[in-house]
């Protein structure tokens, strides 16, 4: 039994009056047009482009990430969903309602085509980035549900197991993912929720993760944020201002496949044992990371953006310890580079008096094997491992950008 939210028999008489309001949908009022702050599309990020937005776009403050499993086995239905999603994404990134009618302008007896919680909010820099998981191409038992198995890129394979992994399968993997980033958390959540609503019956949410604060900068115009260990994070990240490096390490090119212009996304939910960390003395914390906590300068140097010097010595010891995170993660020692785009999370508490907090690590690369996998293997002896646990893992192929109004997510793969 429950208290009924609909008045089962009370509908008498609402008839015609309400129904008359239908069909006003042509107006397609953009949310931005109604904001109090008088926001313009200036803070909208362009949805169309050679690459998807949300990779080198200056990292927004908030994240809602969602992984879906595809329920339908019907390729046409999946394609129609991807097209409907693209339309909705195009609209929402412009600050408009998810559907052409809008949250309140439609048929009184139909569920609205926008859920409404973003009414009055600006676009807030929203980006929506889609990725395709390995299981979309072949299910775990090898079934090619959508006739695309022969188009699965060799790079898109499940990640290997790493020492110390404590992965929970129910929050790992997924056939599809959407990364929604925005400067307003409600805008990001609204976007994911509406895509999930549109996909009802065809896809189901497998898992989802909120991130409340960015832990990286992807543009040299941004200040470096701090992660939950209190350290600046993103100092030595790949940045939008380094196009040649991005072409080499982030964007797929020259494969002649549907993935050219795309990138591979690895997600890892990393629990950070903040209570344990907070008991460590400042010196040990800095030796663990390899940078100072205050300015973020590499140990042995003075300013945040000073290059790391692995030859510097202090009292006859290397200034940046060989077991430190920066030492092992730096391109000099890992032999590669990745674009990090993670977010801090606190998902309540763990029942043992501790916060369930951490870093939802996201990184983009042109090949997971020579990107995340190579770095993470090199982090095997990282002192940081004592304070972190990886609890979820996924890998996705993010196709190139949607080029114009007629294009759609996955047109290269399914077209």
């Amino acid at each position: 039994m429950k208290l009924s939210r609909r008045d089962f028999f009370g509908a008498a008489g609402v008839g015609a009056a309400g129904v008359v309001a239908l069909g006003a949908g042509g107006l397609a009022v953009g949310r931005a047009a109604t904001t109090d702050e008088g926001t313009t599309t200036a803070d909208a990020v362009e949805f169309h482009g050679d690459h998807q937005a949300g990779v080198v776009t200056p990292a927004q403050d908030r994240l809602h990430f969602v992984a879906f499993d595809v329920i339908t086995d019907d390729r046409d239905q999946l394609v129609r969903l991807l097209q409907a999603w693209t339309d909705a994404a195009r609209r929402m990134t412009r600050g408009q309602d998810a559907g052409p009618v809008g949250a309140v302008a439609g048929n009184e007896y139909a569920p609205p085509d926008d859920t409404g919680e973003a009414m009055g909010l600006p676009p807030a820099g929203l980006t929506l980035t889609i990725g395709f998981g390995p299981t979309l191409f072949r299910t775990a038992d090898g079934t090619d549900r959508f006739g695309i198995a022969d188009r699965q890129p060799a790079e898109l394979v499940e990640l290997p197991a790493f020492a110390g992994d404590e992965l929970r399968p129910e929050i790992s993997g997924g056939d599809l993912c959407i990364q929604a980033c925005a400067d307003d958390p409600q805008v990001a959540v609204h976007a994911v929720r509406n895509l999930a609503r549109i996909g009802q019956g065809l896809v189901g949410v497998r898992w989802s993760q909120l991130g409340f604060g960015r832990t990286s900068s992807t543009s040299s115009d941004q200040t470096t944020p701090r992660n939950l260990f209190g350290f600046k994070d993103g100092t030595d990240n790949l940045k939008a201002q380094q196009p040649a490096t991005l072409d080499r390490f982030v964007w797929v090119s020259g494969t002649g496949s549907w993935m050219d212009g795309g990138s591979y996304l690895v997600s890892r939910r990393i629990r950070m044992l903040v209570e344990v960390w907070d008991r460590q003395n400042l010196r040990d914390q800095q030796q663990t990371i390899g940078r100072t906590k205050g300015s973020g300068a590499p140990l042995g140097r003075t300013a945040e953006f000073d290059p790391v010097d692995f030859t510097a010595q202090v009292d006859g010891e290397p200034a940046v310890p060989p077991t430190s995170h920066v030492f092992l993660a730096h391109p000099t020692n890992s032999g590669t580079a990745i674009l990090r785009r993670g977010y801090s999370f606190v998902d309540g508490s763990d029942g043992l008096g501790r916060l369930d907090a951490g870093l939802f690590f996201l990184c983009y690369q042109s090949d997971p094997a020579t990107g995340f996998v190579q770095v993470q293997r090199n982090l095997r002896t990282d002192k940081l491992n004592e304070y972190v646990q990886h609890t979820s893992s996924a890998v996705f192929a993010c196709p190139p950008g949607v080029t114009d109004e007629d294009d759609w997510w996955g047109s290269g793969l399914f077209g």
Partner: protein
Amino acid sequence: MRARRTTLVAAGAAALALLAACGGGTSAGSGDTEASDDITVAATDTTCDVSTGDLDAGTHQFTVTNSGSSVTEFYVYAEGDRIMGEVENIAPGVARSLVVELPAGDYQTACKPGMVGDGIRNALTVTGESQQLSDDEQLQAAVTDYTRYVGSQVTALQEQTQAFVDAVKAGDVAQAQALYPVARTYYERIEPVAESFGDLDPKIDARENDVEEGDTWTGFHVLERDLWSTGDLSQSGPVADQLMTDVDDLATQVQTLDLQPLALANGALELLDEIAASKVTGEEERYSHTDLWDFQANLDGSQAAVTSLRPAIAAADPDLATALDSAFAATQAELAQFAAGDGFVLYTALTPEQVQGLSDSLNALAAQVSQVPAAIAG
């Protein structure tokens, strides 16, 4: 857009008169025309022999004789399993009749020994003059149809609750446990109707945590706890009596039912929301774990409302009508995997993946059903 104000108010007198005429499990499709014939249906546990497969359009009487060993039901279905008429609860050795008006068209008859599943089906072809109903008539027919359904369910609810209450008062735990999910089926099929009668739903169906401090907890779930948790029925008599009183009260109140077509559509969705809220999570039947019986019953009730509306839906949006047919069939198939005997496996036997599968198909179905109100209003 057509103004539909008049159709959204009650079908009124006709529905009521009908309801009054449909006691005792015998129900009429519509109208008060006399049946001109008597078609015999010989039902057993494995067969369902209908004396003819061809009829002229008009009013017909079916007399169903159950010579099997389990309780059976008999249905006449139109396209999309829209129920034209049914008799519930035909005990072994009993004969019951059904009067139903059938316009020309293709139908199916079904016996449901054990009262579950698709039943044993036979084709029934009706030829002759077929009249095209106007939109308003279609909606009125839907209300009449569904009102009749509610009436038949409430009658069965009274009968089955009486049997359950008798078993409880006799201290027969095994028998009461067997009857509990069956009696609840008839309640769960029409739960939104019961919810519209003020405090009857909490009195009949409250779970322990629904009851405010200081209020007395009554109804099915108290007896569920007694049967499965404590196994002690010595104090259960007054609760059982009260339950019977409340169910009888519901049956009386249902006579005053004044339905709107939109309420049917909303009720269909509400029943699915009920499944999503408490059945698919296993929260409804915390002691007996018979949640899948309730799942089936809510699904039946939702489908009954939608199939009543089906001609109106098909006229407004034919694609939606067929999408609804296949979504109901898909959810039914998903659930049927867990059928066991005359009922279902316990909720606790399901793996998380199986629950996920049920939830996925339910979401797909609800997405379609949520389109119905606009289709018929618009």
